[in-house]
């Protein structure tokens, strides 16, 4: 089956800087691909090229077999888009916006159902300007889905939502995916990426660093475990660094922090027992996608 979205060697520069250097991606039917990367990495420019909002300088893009620029009319009927700064007229009411947008599409979703699913029913008659940031965000998600699209591109899906609304939105997106809609998700949130995405594309400085499943990315970053404890009596670091399963030992005050692969905990406790040292306040952390990201790009995602 041909991929739903295919991007090959995309390159886009603005007057003063290269936004996207060389990006190639494929998205298969029915999957959720997450695009992850620090601010200014080129994530938004990449999806704007896929949406046909920007003209690439080089490279090829196909969405559902269509060229985003030449086949605009057809593409806009099948592609749902949530823009980062997507806005509506200030005096337009929630229900009016949904009804209006649903009239743009040949086979729209039920806009009242969407309004309910996104918890906007009691705001139906509220003007856009009077909505909170989270409500505006939910409305923009609803508008991206109101055309009943085959493919949806969601930029910063849950930015500005409180934790409960964020989880509700994830449920909604899983519901959309279960109907076979292919989704591209631009995100900052590790938790969101781990929960929703089948695969993740890591973009940094306009290039794809890596594409893998969330678990695969963590594994590739080779940070299995982090073990932290206070030794009951002085301890020579070399006892631990000599272990093959341990990749690093650092000190944080009286605490020893050991990182290593999945066997590190076993190896460390065995050595400590042999030397009659008790590990007090022992804590073990599993490496998160966040750690993997830092390891793979040398950068942090922006704090939220």
């Amino acid at each position, binding site marked *: 089956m041909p991929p739903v979205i295919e991007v090959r060697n995309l390159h886009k520069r603005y007057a003063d800087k290269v936004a996207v250097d060389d990006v190639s991606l494929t998205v298969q039917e029915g999957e959720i691909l997450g695009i992850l990367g620090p601010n200014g990495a080129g994530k938004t420019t990449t999806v704007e090229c896929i949406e046909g*909002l920007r003209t690439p300088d080089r490279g090829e893009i196909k969405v559902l077999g269509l060229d985003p620029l030449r086949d605009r009319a057809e593409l806009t009927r099948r592609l749902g888009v949530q823009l980062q700064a997507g806005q509506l007229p200030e005096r337009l009411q929630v229900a009016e916006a949904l009804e209006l947008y649903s009239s743009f599409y*040949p086979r729209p*979703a*039920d806009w009242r159902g969407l309004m309910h*699913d996104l918890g906007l029913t009691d705001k139906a008659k509220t003007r856009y300007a009077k909505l909170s940031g989270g409500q505006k965000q939910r409305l923009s998600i609803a*508008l991206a889905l109101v055309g009943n699209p085959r493919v949806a591109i969601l930029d910063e899906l849950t930015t500005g939502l409180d934790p409960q609304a964020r989880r509700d939105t994830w449920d*909604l997106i899983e519901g959309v995916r279960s109907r076979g809609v292919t989704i591209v998700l631009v995100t900052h949130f590790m938790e969101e990426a781990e929960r929703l995405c089948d695969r993740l594309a890591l973009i940094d400085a306009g290039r794809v660093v890596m594409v893998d499943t969330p678990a695969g990315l963590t594994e590739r970053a080779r940070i299995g475990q982090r073990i932290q404890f206070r030794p009951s009596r002085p301890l020579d670091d070399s006892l631990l660094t000599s272990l093959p399963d341990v990749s690093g030992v650092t000190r944080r005050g009286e605490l020893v922090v050991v990182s290593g692969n999945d066997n590190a905990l076993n190896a460390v406790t065995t050595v400590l027992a042999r030397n009659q040292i008790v590990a007090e306040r022992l804590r073990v952390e599993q490496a998160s996608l966040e750690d993997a990201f830092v390891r793979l790009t040398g950068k942090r995602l922006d704090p939220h």
Partner: protein
Amino acid sequence: MSVLNTAPPRAAAKPGSATWRLIKAESKLSIRDKMALLWGVGIPLVVLIILGSIPSLRKPNEDTGGLTTFDVYVPVLILFNLAILAVTALPTTLAGYRENGVLQRMRTTPIGPARVLTAQLVANFAIALVAMILFLAVAGLGFGVDLPQHLFGFAVAWLLAAAALLAIGLLLTARVPGRSVASAMGMVLFFPMMFFAGLWVPISEMPAVLQNISRYTPLGAGMRAFQDAYLGHFPSVLPLLTLAVYAVGCSIIAVRWFRWE
């Protein structure tokens, strides 16, 4: 949360139904814009009523072919309404849409941003049409001002004036960076245009130089065409041609230069 429901597929969306809904929505939004209604309709209507209540303005005047000063002010106020809607309300709204990403958002739908422009033009045109009929009715029923004697000529003049002003508004919108600049520039255009329509000094009392300049301004030309129609003739060629040149010229430049983002 439940899985999305899908509405039963409509056989085929009625052609033009989206455009029609967009026009309705934009009209509603324009009516909710209280400032535009106040300046565009409320104030000229109040001025009309006040002027109509001053007896000295209702004596026939030799300079204007027997029309009273008040008679002359009715078309001036009709142009006032058109100018407010076309060169301040329209550009402010559309520049705001561009600034807030409304046009960009429309680019991702099958409808496209050009139809938002069209809908705004139609909405302002419709409000102006209703206001014009309202002004004529108030002047006629309230103060006994006769309708323009050449009604068809008046209609042609009004349509051309509306087209010229909306085109000027669109040209203004095409390049301004944002909402606040749009509204400031609209005002800067509005006052000299209204001056040459005779809002403060009737055209017939202007010095010859100003009268000549007035001929070639959009509202001055509009006034001349209106006066011809009030006196019972089809408007002469020069004012109609002037209005048509503004309408076509400004539209062409606006369409070529329009910044969508």
